[in-house]
């Protein structure tokens, strides 16, 4: 893809080069690697209270990056993602009842949620925008009501995982932490790689103009379905992680709409439609939740108010504000024209001669 755009641009003015970012981002790759390594060493450095808290953060971050993929890139606002959180948790419980280790059960549960997402998509895709949102909610509730009908899964009260690994609590917590870190890194990496590839291009086209995208041969329906299924896998993995970290699965807790509130608010506050936004939003969420933990429902009230304010006043969220000043992409998925000095002078002269669309061409397909 980049080679195509490079040739077309080169033919116009020499000295332009299409790049993924305005600045060199080799260091961000290195930085990400260092961050992951440091995070992986956490169980040796900090108390288990901190790692347990981090696991909560991993769950929210995984959920937020999935919700961002849906709402920020595919235009799918789901308020029923708790359905997949619950499904993932219950898959782990079911497999664990049949003597499978809970850590092995986690990836299977995630894939199971992806499989379940296909027929669920078929149901909800008949409705658009707002009605799609409530339909996902009804679906999540229906899934919960169906699961509650199985006494072997603990009916309406839920049950603890029957076969927990025979490890000391320190080791168990450390293992859970590493699995959580792996889930989150995998989720972020797959969202990043997906958006860099064909799907990302298709989604950007749909977001900008659905009709034009459709008429240019973008398969809008299948692109959206793919996103829904991927988000199902991601949210299922987060739900499975929840079951593994809590060692108990309760329907009212895992199917709570609060999960969707948390993921949506983290995305909106951090910056919707960017990969960095959910990370920033999750940090804000965790800080708020920890500081206001002793005031019951207050953190959700404040989080909700902040989210409403951000949506209305600073639509691009905290990361958008930071981006205005720093011009940094940690995860570049768009395209930039990088210019040499001479070409930049040429371009500015042309822009001055013919004010209009030319001058805007320096920024494409991003934001």
């Amino acid at each position: 893809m980049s080679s195509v755009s490079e040739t077309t641009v080169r033919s116009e003015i020499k000295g332009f080069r299409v790049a993924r970012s305005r600045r060199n981002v080799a260091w961000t790759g290195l930085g990400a690697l260092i961050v992951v390594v440091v995070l992986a060493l956490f169980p040796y450095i900090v108390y288990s209270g901190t790692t347990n808290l981090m696991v909560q953060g991993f769950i929210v971050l995984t959920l937020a990056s999935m919700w961002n993929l849906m709402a920020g890139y595919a235009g799918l606002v789901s308020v029923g993602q708790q359905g997949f959180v619950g499904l993932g948790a219950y898959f782990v419980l079911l497999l664990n009842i049949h003597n499978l280790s809970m850590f092995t059960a986690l990836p299977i549960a995630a894939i199971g949620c992806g499989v379940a997402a296909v027929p669920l998509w078929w149901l909800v895709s008949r409705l658009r925008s707002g009605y799609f949102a409530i339909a996902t909610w009804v679906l999540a509730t229906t899934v919960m009501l169906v699961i509650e009908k199985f006494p072997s899964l603990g009916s309406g009260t839920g049950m603890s995982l029957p076969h927990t690994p025979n490890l000391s609590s320190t080791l168990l917590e450390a293992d859970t932490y590493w699995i959580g870190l792996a889930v989150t890194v995998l989720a972020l990496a797959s969202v990043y790689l997906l958006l860099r590839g064909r799907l990302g291009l298709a989604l950007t086209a749909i977001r900008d103009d659905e009709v034009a995208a459709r008429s240019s041969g973008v398969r809008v329906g299948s692109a959206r379905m793919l996103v829904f299924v991927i988000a199902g896998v991601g949210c299922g993995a987060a739900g499975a992680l929840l079951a593994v970290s809590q060692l108990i699965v309760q329907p009212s807790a895992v199917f709570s709409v609060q999960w969707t509130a948390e993921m949506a608010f983290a995305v909106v506050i951090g910056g919707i439609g960017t990969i960095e936004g959910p990370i920033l939003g999750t940090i804000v969420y965790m800080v708020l939740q920890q500081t206001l933990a002793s005031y019951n429902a207050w953190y959700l009230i404040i989080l909700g108010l902040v989210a409403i304010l951000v949506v209305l006043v600073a639509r691009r969220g905290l990361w958008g504000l930071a981006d205005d000043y720093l011009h940094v992409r940690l995860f570049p998925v768009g395209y930039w024209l990088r210019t040499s000095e001479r070409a930049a002078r040429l371009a500015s002269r042309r822009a001055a001669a013919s004010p209009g669309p030319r001058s805007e061409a320096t920024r494409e397909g991003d934001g």
Partner: protein
Amino acid sequence: MAWVSAVIQGILTGGLYALFACGLSLMFGVMKVVNLAHGDLAVVGGYVAVGVITVTHVPVLLSFLIVVPLMAILGYVLQRTVIQAALNRSILTTLLVTFGLSVVIENGLLQFINADSHSLGVGNSIVTGSFKISSQLQIGYLLLLIFAVAVVVLLGLQYFLTGSKYGRMIRAVADDQEAAQLSGIDYRHVFGIAAAIAFATVALAGIAYGMYSQFSPTTGTDTILLFAFAAVVIGGLGSLWGTLVGGIVLGVAQQIGAQINASDQLLAGYIVFLVVLVLRPQGLTARRAQT
């Protein structure tokens, strides 16, 4: 006989569900706003009624005279400020804002009132009593009253939308906002009025639910919003009388489900909703798909 009784009970609760649904349908029809805070606002209406009754000692049945205007004013103000601001940006923004409102209202009620259930107890024997058709078949006066209120509200809305000046303005704006504006209609004011009417029905829904059953802060989403939505989809998106048809189908499905197994009441309703979604996504009454 128990089955006949269940069906009658279901039809009558359908009136309550239509009351839940018509405000949601109206706001979508006029402003293309799917108000995710719809159910929580109905619960707010219920709590306002509890407050009004405690302070002024008006009879429960007359509390709507105070609560409905209050909620209508709230609707106008919310529409002209937050919802209009969101509408100026995008559909996505209105969804996020109304979802935010829903979470804030629900947790606000949990924080400032409590998680206990409340109800609007009607001591009046006319309201708590029932017709006895036979020993097993009886019809509660209260549900009958709520059904009648729903029919009156729908008739009133229909008359208002087709016959009155503001109704014509609302329909004009819903059809073509720009053309209506060119003809000298301030669409934001019209949106405000439509929201005020929708919130008035929401207040009635909250009071009716409070008399029929108990409500707590979480009732708004897990009962009222989802039932309202199911009724709208079953009946047909954008159709006013469709909400009554959808409400009745949902109510009957739930009551029959409860007859089979007491814990299957909710599930039966949602299964009928999903079946309609698969077989007739445009709803039972709609002539063409309106998604």
